């Protein structure tokens, strides 16, 4: 297999814990979230623009705490309330909901109240901006029982204040914002990704000017950075496959960075 094919796959956008790169800013966010979960809070809001590492962080927390406490990760939002409550019923009561039956919300609230002080359940809700207002209201009522703790992850959009202001104004006790990383961190991120798979030579060819160029397109966004790096190695892969290929393995190609940027629409020609 082409080495460039392997290289491009390093930058496939994933929330796999094995792909997690420990950066200074990510470590800070992790520690803050970890502390918040340990405290008796009802709601924790995790927000940031798409591609700032919210899902990776939630997954990382889930993987690290899943054997220590009752923690559950809802990676994809359940559009149908029935489906959400079926899932919720199972993890709270530890029983399957019988077929052709629906969860009685009032009974569920009563049950949650009955386990308060006995059990402490943490639910990590990713992509929470996908839930409708009615669902969010029910989540709020569930958190009020004191038995369920929610970590709500939302995209930082124009409606970012919706949850905080309208539904959970008095209940969200902790907010954690994730931001794009700096140029230095981007360099560390790319290098660590490559070194993790033992691509020392390639990592060594990526210099400051290349990082600067990549950063100018991606603004330090993980997802955008992954996309650019993936495209760059895809272009490498193409030229490597051409007869009489003249790829200079000692130098990282600025041309390919620019071509990737054109392909991804960062540069309008």
């Amino acid at each position, binding site marked *: 297999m082409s080495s460039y094919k392997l290289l491009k796959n390093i930058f496939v956008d994933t929330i796999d814990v094995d792909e997690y790169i420990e950066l200074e800013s990510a470590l800070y966010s992790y520690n803050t979230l970890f502390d918040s979960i340990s405290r008796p809070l009802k709601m924790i809001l995790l927000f940031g623009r798409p591609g700032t590492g919210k899902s990776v962080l939630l997954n990382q927390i889930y993987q690290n705490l899943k054997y220590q406490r009752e923690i559950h990760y809802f990676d994809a939002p359940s559009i149908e309330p029935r489906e959400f409550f079926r899932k919720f019923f199972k993890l709270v009561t530890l029983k399957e909901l019988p077929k052709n039956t629906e969860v009685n919300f009032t009974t569920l609230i009563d049950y949650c109240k009955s386990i308060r002080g006995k059990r402490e359940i943490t639910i990590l809700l990713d992509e929470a901006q996908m839930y409708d207002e009615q669902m969010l209201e029910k989540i709020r009522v569930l958190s009020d029982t004191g038995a369920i703790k929610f970590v709500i992850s939302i995209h930082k959009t124009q409606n970012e204040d919706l949850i905080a202001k309208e539904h959970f104004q008095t209940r969200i006790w902790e907010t954690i914002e994730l931001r794009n990383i700096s140029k230095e961190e981007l360099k560390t991120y790319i290098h660590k990704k490559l070194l993790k798979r033992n691509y020392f030579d390639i990592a060594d060819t990526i210099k400051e000017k290349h990082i600067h160029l990549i950063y100018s397109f991606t603004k330090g966004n993980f997802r955008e950075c992954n996309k650019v790096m993936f495209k760059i190695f*895809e*272009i490498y892969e*193409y030229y490597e496959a051409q007869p009489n290929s003249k790829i200079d393995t000692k130098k990282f190609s600025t*041309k390919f960075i*620019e*071509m990737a940027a*054109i*392909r991804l629409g960062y540069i309008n*020609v």
Partner: protein
Amino acid sequence: MYDMKELEKKWFKYKLKQSIPWFILVIAVALMILYYNNRVKVNTLLVDYYNQISEKYFPKKIETNTTIVTLDNRTQVVEVPLPLPDINESEDELNVSDEIFDTNDTLYETNSSNPFFSSIKDAPEVDKKTPEEILEDEIEKRHEKKYIHIKKSSDAYQEVEQRFVTSQDPEDALFLARIYYEKKNYKKAEEWAFIANELNDESEESWLIYAKAKAARGEYLKAIHILDSYLQKTNSLGARKLLEEYKAKLSKK
């Protein structure tokens, strides 16, 4: 895989676009340098050409020979310009000959067009002039050569006096007063100084010539009176000096 050829084309287009401002900058700088260099060159050429023309037609220093002529008992120095260089006329033709000097009582005037004086000698004409000579003549006309015209002074005085009848020019009157005083014709000097003063009583020279003429005729008291009157109007150092001189002479008498 998407169309890499198309992507390459787009990349070339992008690089071209990216380099356009640099091309423009480089061209602009090059044009500025060219313009500056040419300007310096043109300026140098113009200056050289101007210097050549200037040296040819307007020598910086016109050398003169000096002739000493006697006017009455006094000695005056008259400067005669030497012929201009590089003009295709013979030296003899351009030189002002000694004949034009009248060693008798003479005045000199530089303006040949002045009807008051008659020209002594016309410059000889040159037959069959080349275009260059015509051009030179044209330049020469604009910067007229100075010829010395000499006239007998008695005629000159008469003409100034005649002209004064119509012009009533205080300068003419003062000129006559000055000349008569220099010629020690104090009575005439006194008369013309008086007339000049009547026309312009702010002319210090008219007051002074009038007083000096009076004093020269031995009328120190009147001269003192005249200078006193003038000093009441002004604070002239010349008048004060004369006044003191005359007072001293009067006291000796």
